[in-house]
């Protein structure tokens, strides 16, 4: 399941970001009628088609796997969080329908109608992502039911869907999708531009990608801070693990880097900034931040994994924001980012950054919640299927996904990025 999700999320992120790029490029084409924009819109729509197909089939695997691996969880949670999944299904429907119309309808529809079909794809893709994250957020802050003898009663699916974690998480995830896609696309074209600075195609592509990447990467920092404040309030164990923070203190120290050691209960090799953690978590330099020691060890997640994943996400996020600031400075000075060779190099290096940050972010959320599958309600170990020999499908799916990932990367490269029209 974690494997399928880690694979699916890559496609989901691109499935949210790529349609927006494609729609923006087509809008430029409709306005300026410069062929380079049409070329760009077509290439991006081909990329979207490949990514969507693999996203759709891997998503189907997930909708079955929820039951195949976690039947008890689903029996319990289905009625409570089925709502966002049902709405997500409707969003998928709209997305798949209009993607068909868009991809195959270039000559069958008026230019305007065709563009609107693209807009429908972009909107429904984003909305479907938001609904899934609502469901995931419920696992972090379960609301909308009362427990009686271990059974959920007095269900309120609407309250469950709009659980307190839903908004910060959905915001953070959606921004992550735009930032990741934007930076990745910008990075690829930046790399091509280093060889051929004057290519109108790559200049156009870089420009559109940065329109998305820059605002999203900058806002991501703010939204990440919001998420952290929220976690501090509702999942103090997770926060302590994120930060490698073992001892409860006032004016708590922020640790950057370091390797938490659960036995010695210390996080050595970190850069320490006094009082900064209290400020970041509670907007008050002297606030008390609970350490892991305040909780029974049986409720600890794997601290080192969570802390290191968090450092990776924040580190990459900071680099992405730095690159974005750089672009903003160039914009203010009325210089084209495509003319700055060092920036192109930096962006090219950052191409995979968003994806790594997304994977790391999910490790933070999911592993940080362990040993709970539903925070404070159901333990992961109680939810698993009685099916023996799960390692077989796990290995088979893993091999399949690696294979598909390689093929998709190759296709995107060979068929879309590398080829140039004569």
């Amino acid at each position, binding site marked *: 399941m974690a494997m399928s999700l880690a694979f699916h999320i890559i496609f989901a992120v691109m499935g949210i970001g790529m349609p927006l790029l494609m729609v923006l490029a087509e809008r430029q084409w409709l306005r300026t009628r*410069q*062929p*380079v924009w*049409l070329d760009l819109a*077509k290439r991006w729509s*081909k990329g979207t088609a*490949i990514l969507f*197909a*693999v996203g*759709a*089939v891997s*998503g*189907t695997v997930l*909708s*079955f796997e*929820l*039951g*195949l691996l976690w*039947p008890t969880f*689903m*029996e319990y949670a*289905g*009625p*409570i969080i*089925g*709502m966002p*999944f*049902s*709405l*997500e*299904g*409707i969003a*998928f*429907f709209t997305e*798949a*329908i*209009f993607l*068909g*119309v868009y*991809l*195959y*309808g*270039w*000559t*069958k*529809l008026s230019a305007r109608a065709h563009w609107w079909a693209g807009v429908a794809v972009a909107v429904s893709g984003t909305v479907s992502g938001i609904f899934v994250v609502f469901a995931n957020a419920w696992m972090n802050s379960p609301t909308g039911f009362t427990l009686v003898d271990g059974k959920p009663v007095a*269900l*309120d*699916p609407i309250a469950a869907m709009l659980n307190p974690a839903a908004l910060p998480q959905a915001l953070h995830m959606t921004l992550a999708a735009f930032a990741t896609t934007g930076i990745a696309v910008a990075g690829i074209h930046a790399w091509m531009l280093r060889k051929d600075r004057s290519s*109108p195609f790559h200049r156009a592509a870089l420009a559109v990608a940065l329109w998305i990447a820059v605002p999203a990467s900058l806002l991501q920092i703010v939204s990440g801070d919001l998420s952290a404040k929220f976690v501090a309030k509702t999942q103090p164990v997770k926060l302590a693990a994120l930060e490698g923070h073992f001892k409860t203190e006032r004016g708590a120290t922020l640790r950057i880097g370091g390797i938490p050691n659960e036995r010695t209960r210390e996080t050595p090799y970190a850069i320490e900034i006094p009082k900064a953690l209290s400020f970041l978590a509670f907007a008050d330099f002297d606030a008390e931040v609970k350490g892991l020691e305040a909780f029974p060890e049986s409720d600890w997640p794997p601290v080192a994994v969570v802390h290191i994943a968090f450092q990776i996400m924040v580190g990459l996020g900071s680099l992405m924001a730095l690159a974005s600031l750089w672009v903003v400075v160039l914009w203010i000075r009325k210089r084209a980012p495509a003319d700055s060779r060092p920036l192109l190099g930096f962006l090219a290096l950052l191409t995979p950054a968003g994806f790594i940050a997304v994977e790391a972010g999910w490790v933070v959320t999911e592993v940080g919640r362990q040993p709970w599958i539903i925070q404070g309600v159901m333990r992961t170990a109680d939810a698993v*299927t*009685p*099916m023996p*020999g799960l390692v077989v*499908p796990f290995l*088979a799916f893993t091999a*399949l996904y690696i294979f*598909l990932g390689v*093929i998709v990367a190759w296709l995107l490269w*060979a068929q879309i990025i590398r080829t140039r029209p004569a």
Partner: protein
Amino acid sequence: MPEPLLPHVLAFVTMLALNAYVVLGGADFGAGVWDLLARGPRKDVQREAIAHGIGPIWEANHVWIILVVVLLFTCFPAVYAYLSVALHVPLVLMLFGIVLRGSAFTFRAYDSTNSPVQKWWGRIFSIASTVTPVVLGMSVGAIVSGAIVTPPDATFTARFLTPWLSPFAIAVGGLTLAVFAFLAAVYLTVEAETHDLQEDFRRNALGAAVIVGACALATLITGRETVSKLTDTLLTHTLAIPLQIITGVAALSAIAALVTRRYRIARAAAVVPVSAIVWGWALAQFPWMVPGVHSVTSAAAPAVTQRLVAYGLAAGAVLVVPSLWVLFSVFKSDTMSAFERVDTAEYRATDTPPKERS
């Protein structure tokens, strides 16, 4: 609304979605079967017609199965959980098929190098399209025969393998494949460009119809031994006789229309007996969703959830139905052929009049 009504409505809608998956998504699988079996001088043309026929629509058609799964786990979570455990092995196999079918089809479409690699995508697409329906059918066979109900202390084989490997389940698997192939061939006769191509698909459709008949017979024979209740209900239920008459008449009209080359009528008529099989299954099993274990009412989620899902479905229908109508009217109307469509799209892509570059 009296309480027990809503679960029945939702179960009905779930079956409706499954029905849509069978007649729409099923035909996309069936098309893959004909891709595998393409023979003779026109085999490449046949394959192209298949690719153009399902290209724009298969993803939308595929969402029906997602809808079925989502409705099942939201409205009938106990059934979803039960089936997920009991049918773990065939469902995993089916998922493999779904993943390979969809990705290989897309890879083939976008791999324009015409290399031997592209042939391999075609091969994977068609094999996955053929295996997946069989496994789907075997799972249904396991459910309807009640074989999935096993004591939890049964051996691994008895619990996870035998139920869907019974002769009856295998017969249902074969029936599913034959039905999907039949539907695809009938639809393709309408979409085929040339007379020759139409004749090819007509022959395929008639051949598939014979195999459907044989498989149906096989399910009745194997089914009589293992699940007498199924055949009993189908023979005695008040709705059974009208259902069978409709099925018979529609099936015969579809064949007659094929024989007389009235393809549009054949397409309309072919959908009816296929849907009747789906509803026959529902009727045979009613009110049980897992025979003897979970019924429509006993497995239903709490009433709030049901009510909200019903509202959600209504709102969703307002959005999805017109969108589907747009999709099918854009691509399944006959004003322009699939080939012209794609050719002009390419044309437009490369030869758009360049206004002055700046």
